[in-house]
């Protein structure tokens, strides 16, 4: 009974797609074809396994870093406890360590830099994404912006010391604040320049991805270019733009070399944005090689742990915000 059905089906199939089945059969039956198929399957499997492996390695790496930071921070955690986070003194001589001035410095410089950089990066993204997507001038601008990201940070540090610091100093003289030149404000300016490309590049690509039907629809309804940007492009690309800004922030939080050269490196809590300060990354870079006591070294590593956690928290908040934008 069953045999008959199969036969019937087979006949029915061969009626409709006789040619195709015949050629497939021929392929499978020939030894060469079988080998080819096996190889394809093998390749697919290996490739999939490799992707999985790479992904797993990344996860292991991050967990490993967190674990190492935690492990190495234990002496400092034991000696100082949670007071470490809001302690205001950093005194290696007496083994008293408080991360608060540096935590504040990191957050101040990064967010200030972000605020300064956003108008520039959004403007560049809109200009390159909407106004002039093609042509040699936009190409030139695009490459220049990307180059900003490629310049090593120590060069920004030198530029900051030689050019920006004297400029800020004369500004401070006119404002009648202590004319140090170096400080939170100067580092924020440097950071702002350094992080523009991240938000600008991502912003440009998401703006270019806005479906032209939407834009054309708006234009057909009589919208001006400004109105299209404001009510079509920006709402459509909100989450992408925000992701770019988040990327910029991440970069600003961890930047070390350029900041340490212009921030003034003092563990005194900054009283204004023109005052010198210090960031967590900069303290680690400065003091790590000569940390001559176990607790000191551990306190520096704990600073790294705090920086790591700050980055994670900010990223998590960012992800939530992006999700809310996307759901709307």
């Amino acid at each position, binding site marked *: 009974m069953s045999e008959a059905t199969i036969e019937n089906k087979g006949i029915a199939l061969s009626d409709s797609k006789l040619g195709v089945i015949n050629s497939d059969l021929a392929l499978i039956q020939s030894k060469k074809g079988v080998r080819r198929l096996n190889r394809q399957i093998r390749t697919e499997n290996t490739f999939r396994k490799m992707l999985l492996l790479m992904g797993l390695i990344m996860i292991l790496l991050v967990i490993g870093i967190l674990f190492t930071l935690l492990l190495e921070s234990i002496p400092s955690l034991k000696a100082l406890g949670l007071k470490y986070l809001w302690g205001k003194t950093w005194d290696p001589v007496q083994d008293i360590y408080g991360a608060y001035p540096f935590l504040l410095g990191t957050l101040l410089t990064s967010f200030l830099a972000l605020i300064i950089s956003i108008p520039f990066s959004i403007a560049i993204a809109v200009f390159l994404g909407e106004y002039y997507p093609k042509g040699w001038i936009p190409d030139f601008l695009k490459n220049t912006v990307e180059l900003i990201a490629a310049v090593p940070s120590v060069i920004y540090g030198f530029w900051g*010391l030689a050019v920006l610091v004297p400029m800020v100093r004369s500004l401070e003289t006119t404002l009648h604040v202590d004319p140090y030149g170096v400080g939170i404000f100067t580092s924020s300016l440097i950071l702002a320049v350094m992080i523009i490309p991240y938000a600008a590049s991502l912003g440009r690509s998401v703006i270019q991805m806005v479906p032209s039907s939407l834009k054309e629809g708006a234009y057909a309804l009589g919208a001006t270019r400004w109105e299209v940007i404001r009510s079509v492009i920006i709402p459509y690309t909100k989450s992408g733009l925000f992701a770019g800004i988040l990327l910029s922030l991440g970069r600003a939080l961890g930047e070390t070399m350029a900041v340490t050269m212009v921030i003034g490196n003092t563990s005194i809590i900054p009283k204004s944005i023109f005052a010198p300060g210090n960031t967590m990354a900069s303290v680690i870079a400065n003091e790590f090689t000569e940390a*001559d006591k176990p607790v000191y070294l551990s306190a520096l590593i704990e600073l790294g742990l705090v920086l790591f956690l700050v980055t994670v928290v900010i990223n998590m908040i960012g992800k939530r915000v992006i999700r809310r934008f996307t759901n709307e």
Partner: protein
Amino acid sequence: MKIRFHNLKSTLTLGVFFAILTISACGDGGNGTTGSSGDDNTLIGAGSSFDNPLFSKMFSEYNKANGLRVNYQSIGSGAGISQLTNKTVDFGASDAPMNSKQDSAASAAILHIPVTAGAVALSYNLPEVKDTLRLTPTVLAGIFLGKISRWDDPQIASINKGIKLPSTGIVVAHRSDGSGTTNIFSTYLSKVSEDWNAKVGKGSSVNWPVGLGGKGTEGVAGLVKQTPGAIGYIELAYAIQNNMAYAKIQNKSGSFIAPSIASVTAAANVNIPQDSKISLTNTDASDGYPISGFSWVLIYKEQKYNNRRSDRAAKLLKLISWMIHDGQQFSGPLTYAPLSTAAATVGDAILKTATYDGKPILP
């Protein structure tokens, strides 16, 4: 498909290759002991960056004469000490003697051999002042504690009669990275000012009550050069080579001494203890500059460790002995202070105590 498969294979091979490379590199880091490294004609040292220019010159001259290569890594005194503690180098070099915690971290006794001396100069940026500024220990401590904050403060004016001081604020510049220079300077301030000793203390990094931090000697020098009214402490050699103005400091005998090679050597011409661990700050020498310090080469007293051969230990001892005698001729041109006779004598005595398997190495 075939080509892709081939690519995949080579990618995998490459990946495996790198993995092996990484693993073998890690392995090397783990057991990379000097004793087992086959080449006994290359000694490895690490530490003080202050010593680096002098050491480069010395080792290159020694190589010409004796064919021995020395690979010196200028990674900072503290890092040099931990490398020696981990027994990954033949010798360390430090601008500060090892502290009690570093001593207890080391598994065996470590010898300190003074190899050169340097000074910390107080450089300032006062374009209006043409004469050399004079500072007393009290005033210096006052400035770095933030108690004296203007250049025309009566305390500064009273010791600089005849110099018209501007009414600008004082901007203190200090090192932001841990360094031997900071250690010498803060040790000096702790000795001369009780207030400093109680509030700040001494160390490679301290909690500065005021001022801006610059990374490295050139960072502090940059801050001083750029900021009107700034004062900062930098290595004497750097100040001389860069034509920076530096102050005369009043020493223990009451005379104002400008830092120079001669005044640093003079400061070191005092009674040096048997272990040579002495701070040259504020010494009794009447013509000595008060903010000076030795730099030491550090080696294990017992040279037989990690399968080191006796030959290697002998070469190391011979090198250090050469450094504290014949090698001193290279100090002057590089603005390092040559060792005083007293220091070289103590260095010789210390080197004689080094042993290999319990037997002395040098005759």
